[in-house]
C-alpha cells in the first residue's frame, strides 16, 4: 500500500482565472492540497479568497465560457482537469458531491423533495423509481427528517431552513460519495440549527467514511469539524496545518488576524479586532506577498522583501506550512507579545 492510497483528492498548483471586460481575474493561484479518505479539510478565508471557486473548479462546475482552470486535480488518482466534461459529470453526485450555502435557493422550487432526491439516485443508478424512492426515504430518515412519508411529497418552500439543508445533505450523500464538498453549509442557518447540521455531518461522515472539504469563514466550525485547515487569502493558500497546529501555533500574520478577530467569551473586550484594510483586487494582485498591503509586521522584514517577493511555502513542522517572510524568531516574538495561540517554547 503506497502512501497515496489513502488520498481521495489531490490538488496540485490549481489556478483559476476569469476573463472579464476589466481584465483577467486571478481567482485561485497555485493552490495545492490533499484530502485523505474519511478526513475533513477546512478551507478558511474571507469572501473573494477563492475558496468557493477552487472547489467549484474541482467539481467541474465552472461552466462559464470565461473561466480557465489549469493545474492538476486527482480524484481517486484520476486527473479531472482537462478530462472530458462527461467523465467529470459522471463522478458528480455519485463519487463526489457538493452542498451549498443557501439551501432555499439551492433546491429547485418547482419540484418536490422526493422528486429531487429520486432524480439524484436515478442519474447514477439503473434502478426503478420505486426503489429510488425507498432509498430517498431511507436517506431522509438518516438525516433526521421527521414524518418522512409526508415530507417527501412537499416542496422546499414548505420546510424550515435547517430541514432544507438536511435535504441537501441527504441529496448529496444519497449515492454514497467518497468526497463531499460543503460550501459554507451553515452560514445561512440559525445558530442552534448550525450546531445540529454540523453534528449531522460529523455522524454521517463517520457512518459513510466520506471525506469532507469544508469551506467556511467560521473558525468555530473549523475547530468543531476539521482535521486539517487551509487558510486562503486573495486566491493563494497562505497557511496549511493540522487543526491543532493552526489554532495553537499559527505562523502567518493573516491567520493571526483571523484568530484575533474572533470574539472570545472569556476575554472582556469593548470592540472586536478586525484586520484593517480590505483584500487586494484580484485583477491586479501585488507582486510580493498578497497580504503585504494589510500586514502590520512587514516593516520587520529586511530588504522590502514583502513588497518585492512572493513568499515561498515554509515548512514549519511536519504537518504545517505557511507563507511568510518573517523569521521564526520574529514570529515567536510577535506571538508571545500578542498572546496569539499557545506558546510552548
Amino acid at each position, binding site marked *: 500500500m503506497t502512501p497515496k492510497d489513502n488520498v481521495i483528492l489531490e490538488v496540485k498548483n490549481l489556478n483559476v482565472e476569469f476573463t472579464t471586460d476589466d481584465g483577467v481575474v486571478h481567482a485561485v493561484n497555485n493552490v495545492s492540497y490533499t484530502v485523505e479518505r474519511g478526513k475533513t479539510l477546512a478551507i478558511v478565508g474571507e469572501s473573494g479568497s477563492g475558496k468557493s471557486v477552487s472547489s467549484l473548479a474541482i*467539481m467541474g462546475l465552472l461552466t462559464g465560457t470565461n473561466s480557465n482552470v489549469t493545474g492538476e486535480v486527482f480524484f481517486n488518482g484520476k486527473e479531472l482537469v482537462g478530462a472530458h466534461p462527461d467523465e467529470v459529470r459522471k463522478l458528480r*453526485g455519485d463519487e463526489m458531491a457538493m452542498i451549498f450555502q443557501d439551501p432555499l*435557493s*439551492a*433546491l*429547485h*422550487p418547482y419540484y*418536490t423533495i422526493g422528486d429531487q432526491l429520486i432524480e439524484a439516485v436515478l442519474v447514477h443508478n439503473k434502478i426503478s423509481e420505486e426503489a429510488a424512492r425507498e432509498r430517498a426515504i431511507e436517506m431522509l430518515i438518516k438525516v433526521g427528517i421527521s414524518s418522512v412519508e409526508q415530507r417527501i411529497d412537499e416542496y422546499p418552500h414548505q420546510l424550515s431552513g435547517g430541514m432544507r439543508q438536511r435535504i441537501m445533505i441527504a441529496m448529496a450523500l444519497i449515492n454514497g460519495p467518497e468526497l463531499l464538498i460543503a460550501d459554507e453549509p451553515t452560514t445561512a442557518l440559525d445558530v442552534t440549527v448550525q450546531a445540529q447540521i454540523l453534528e449531522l455531518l460529523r455522524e454521517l461522515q463517520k457512518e459513510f467514511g466520506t471525506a469532507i472539504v469544508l469551506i467556511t469563514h467560521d473558525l468555530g466550525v473549523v475547530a468543531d469539524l476539521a482535521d486539517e485547515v487551509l487558510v486562503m487569502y486573495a486566491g493563494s493558500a497562505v497557511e496549511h496545518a493540522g487543526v491543532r497546529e493552526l489554532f495553537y501555533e499559527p505562523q502567518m500574520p493573516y491567520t493571526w488576524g483571523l484568530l484575533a478577530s474572533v470574539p472570545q467569551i472569556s476575554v472582556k473586550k469593548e470592540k472586536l479586532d478586525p484586520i484593517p484594510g480590505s483584500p487586494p483586487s484580484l485583477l491586479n494582485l501585488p507582486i510580493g506577498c498578497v497580504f503585504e498591503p494589510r500586514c502590520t509586521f512587514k516593516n520587520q522584514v529586511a530588504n522590502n522583501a514583502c513588497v518585492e517577493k512572493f513568499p515561498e511555502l515554509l515548512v514549519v513542522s511536519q504537518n504545517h506550512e505557511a507563507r511568510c517572510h518573517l523569521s521564526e524568531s520574529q514570529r515567536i516574538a510577535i506571538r508571545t507579545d500578542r498572546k496569539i495561540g499557545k506558546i510552548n517554547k
Partner: protein
Amino acid sequence: MFPYIVRRIFVMFLMLTLLSIVVFLLFNAVPTDPARLTCGKSCTPEVIAANRIRLGLDQPLLTQYLEWIKGFFVGRTYGTGSATFECSRPCLGYSFRSGEEVTTLIVNAVPVTMYLALGAFTLWMVVGISAGIVAAKHQGKWQDRTIMGIALVGYSLPVFFVGLLLLIFAIVRWNVLPYPDYEPPFEDPVAFFQTMLLPWVTLAILYSAYYARLTRSQILETMGEDYIRTARAKGLSERVVFRKHAFRAGLTPIVTSAGLDLAGLLGGAIITEYIFSLPGLGRVAIGAVTDYDLPTITAAVLVSAVFIIIANLVVDILYVAIDPRVRIT
C-alpha cells in the same frame, strides 16, 4: 386549488359587473346627445325625440343601465305599439349607423380576429421561443448576436410599416399572393390562408422579436440560479439541466406575457386588420368610433375587456400549475 379557482371566477364576475357600469357611463358621458346620433344630418327634432323615447334614452340612468343588462341576458323590446321591435338576447342594442343588431356585428367579427390572433400567436410563440433558446444556449457567440440583432430590428419596426411593406411587395408588386379577401376557413381554406398569411407574419415579426428577447433573458437568468448549480452537481447532463430545471422555471414570465398579449390581440388588432381589410373586431371598433356609433363602441370595449379578464384568469391558473409556491388556497 379548487377554492382558489372558484374565488378567482367570482372576482372575475365582480370585475365584469364593474366594467359594465364604467362602459355604460362612458356611453352617457359623451358630450353629444345619444338620441341626436341615431339619425343623420337631415334629422328633424321630432324624429330625434321619438328615437329618444323609443330607445329608452329618456329614462333615468339606472333604469337605462338595468334595461341594458336585462337586454343582454333576456333580450328587450324597443318602442311601443306598431313601432316595436324585438332585440333577442344577448342584446347589445342596435348600431346607430347601419341599424344592424350590435350582437350580430360582434359575432361576425370575433372569429376573424380570433383566427388572426391565434395564428399569429402560434407563429410567434414557436419562432420567438425557439430563437430565444438558441440565443441563450450560444450566449455571446455569433448565433446569439445574429438572433438578437434581427430581434432588435424586428422589435423596432412598427406594425403599420411591416404590414404595408408586405402588402406592397408581396401582393401589389410581385403578385405572390392575391389581394386580401377574407373567407371563413371552412368555406374556402385556400383563400383563408392566402389572406391570413401576411397578417399573421406582420404581427408575428413584432411579437417574435419580443419573445426571443424575453425567452433569452429569462433562460440566462434562470441558468444562473443556485438550483441549476445543484442540478449540475447531481451529475445531470446539460440537456436535462436545461429542459427539466431551467426551462420550466424560466417559463413563468413568458406565460404571463403570452396570455396578456394574446388577449390584447383578441380585442382587435386594429392596424393589421385595417391594412389587410380583415372584417375583425378592430375594424368594427374603429368604424364605430369614427361614426360615433355608441352601442357598437361600448360592445367592442366590453368584448375586449372580457378577453383580457379571461386571459388574466387563465394565466393565474397556469401559474398555479407551473409554480407550486403559488398553490395557496
